[in-house]
């Protein structure tokens, strides 16, 4: 059995893999399947993110009209969901998630720096498929990013991060704009919306966590 083709193929190959898949893959999937079924993007649109979305229209009326259209009370939720979804696509495609994580741990005083510890229910939606936990933090964690900074701060920051955070090593994303931070294109608008959406489901959106880590950015704001 230990040195035969069938033993290796079925026990080591298929069997042990299946065991691990059930034990550490299927268990968490089934645990949350009923309790927190996957929500659609539109269900994740809330009052907080709509405020930011309308603000984006006010600040950048021309690009907004060109790429997203006019907001009406009937269509704004759907348009917002579509924009966040596109923002996630940009976030994934640019590899943002390789330098920014999206979860707050209960250790290393992260609650003081970023806010409340991440909970399972926050991730059970279409916009966390694939989940954007991340494994490296060159830059700050982003799961509580929404509402901390204004839309135009994000625009200027994506255009040239060092103009707002002098020690930042983040690359410039000039291709989110048409030549100036005043003219974000579809990708720029979408990514800003996505940033503001992160954490918008929390009751304490707009809270400034007064840790030292935030001081410099707030000063610049």
């Amino acid at each position: 059995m230990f040195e035969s083709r069938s033993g290796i193929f079925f026990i080591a190959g298929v069997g042990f893999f299946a065991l691990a898949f059930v034990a550490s893959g299927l268990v968490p999937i089934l645990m949350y399947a009923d309790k927190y079924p996957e929500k659609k993007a539109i269900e994740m649109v809330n009052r907080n993110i709509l405020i930011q979305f309308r603000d984006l229209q006010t600040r950048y009326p021309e690009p907004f009209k060109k790429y997203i259209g006019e907001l009406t009370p009937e269509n704004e939720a759907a348009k917002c969901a579509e924009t966040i979804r596109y923002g996630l696509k940009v976030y994934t495609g640019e590899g943002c998630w390789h330098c920014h994580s999206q979860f707050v741990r209960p250790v290393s005083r992260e609650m003081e720096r970023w806010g409340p510890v991440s909970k399972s229910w926050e991730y059970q939606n279409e916009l966390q498929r694939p989940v954007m936990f991340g494994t490296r933090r060159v830059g700050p964690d982003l799961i509580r990013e929404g509402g901390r900074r204004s839309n135009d701060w994000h625009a200027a920051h994506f255009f040239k991060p060092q103009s707002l955070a002098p020690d930042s090593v983040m690359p410039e994303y000039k291709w989110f704009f048409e030549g100036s931070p005043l003219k974000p294109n579809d990708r720029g608008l979408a990514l800003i919306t996505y940033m503001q959406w992160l954490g918008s489901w929390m009751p304490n959106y707009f809270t400034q966590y007064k840790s030292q880590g935030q001081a410099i950015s707030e000063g610049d704001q």
Partner: protein
Amino acid sequence: MTETPLPPDAQPGTRLVLHRLVGLYFVAAIVYMFASLTGGLIMALQLTDLNPLKGIEFFSPGRWRMIHTNAIAYGFIANAFLGALHWAVPRLTLKPVLSVKLSWFIFLAWQVVVLSTAVGILFGQAQGLEWGETPVWIDPLAQAGLVLVAINFMTPIMKMKGPMYVSLWYFIAAFVWTNLTYAMGNFLPEYLICGVGAGAIGGMFIHDLVGLFVTPLGWGLMYYFVPIILKKPMWSHALSLVGFWGLAFFYPLTGIHHFLYTPIPMFLQYGAVISTIAVEFVVTTVIINFFGTIWGSSWSAFKNLPIRWFYTGMVFYFLTCLQCAFQTTLTFQAIIHFSDWVVGHAHMVMFGVFVFWQFGMMVYLFPRIWQTEWYSTRLLEWHYWLSTIGLTLMISALILVGVFQGFSWATLDLWEESIRISMPFWMVRIAAGLIIIAGQVCFAYNLYRTYLLSRRTVKAPGA
């Protein structure tokens, strides 16, 4: 070079091994190696604010970082393994692979997969799965390619008579695992499962790719090449059994250790930590077996370059696994998670172990494939020493700065402070990277000159 002469040890009248295919796989691997090095260099320059290509979309460091990892995993490591398997499997089974045409088709298809992955990533279409950023429209093609690889190599293994050698255990398991891992990681979190479950699956994918694709193929080939070059059998068959079955049982269970302190249930995190520590014990038995094998002929590690590459890789392997047993504990994770410690660890595994082993195989096989000596043994030495010194420097700097970053975050320093303290270490990383690149340039140039030599020697008798 139309007709490749058979090696003296091959059966006359048969074409057991497709020499030209093995060589082409290796050459393709080395080409992708340079793509990967370019990606690493761009990201390293960006992090030290020295990137000369700022603000250009197609040189985006974020995208090139993904090319860096994908080119090494699917471009270098996968190609080099396929080449080495085309050498080892027919010799171990004494049967040719299923079909020569299929072999060539797989070669071409795999290059299409790797190149379109690179192009897809460059155009911002990456998939949100670490080590699996291959755009979603390529995934089915890659999966089909992996199935064909398994069929092509499993045929001679099924046809062979008599007991199977250790290497073949690892190969059989690897063909099963690679297919299952790829399917699980690339399709489930993309289409079916969100959130915490996707995190668990993603963690398993990251780790299974290393533990169930790269590791079993790597060890399988070590079990083949080391005894052949040393001209003596493995030290202990019992330890070979323990190593294989221990790895098979514990390795798949470790995946969640990539996402400790996430909302993934805590009891699953504990399970992954314990399995990871168990893997370290298994690894120790394998290492003992290989050092028992070389015991008594240790001089070959100095004199014989392939053996030196192999055993240097094994030392790094032991170090990474030892590091792993500690770093996956919750105590270490609280500080070093998210830091450059992990980046250092990944470089030690992927470059220091598997790429080193494949360099050893290439150094051993190219002269046999091309029927000529290496152009320069001195350049081969430069390649070895520049790679080893560069890598040691790089991982030392990264692992050390990882600890500093972790403590800087834990003390609630300004975020920028963690960047400022990293700068000197990131400078060292660039220097180390340039040393590694210099080593690979030596190797590529040496290989080119060796190829020219081989053309001359082959043509000479007919001229």
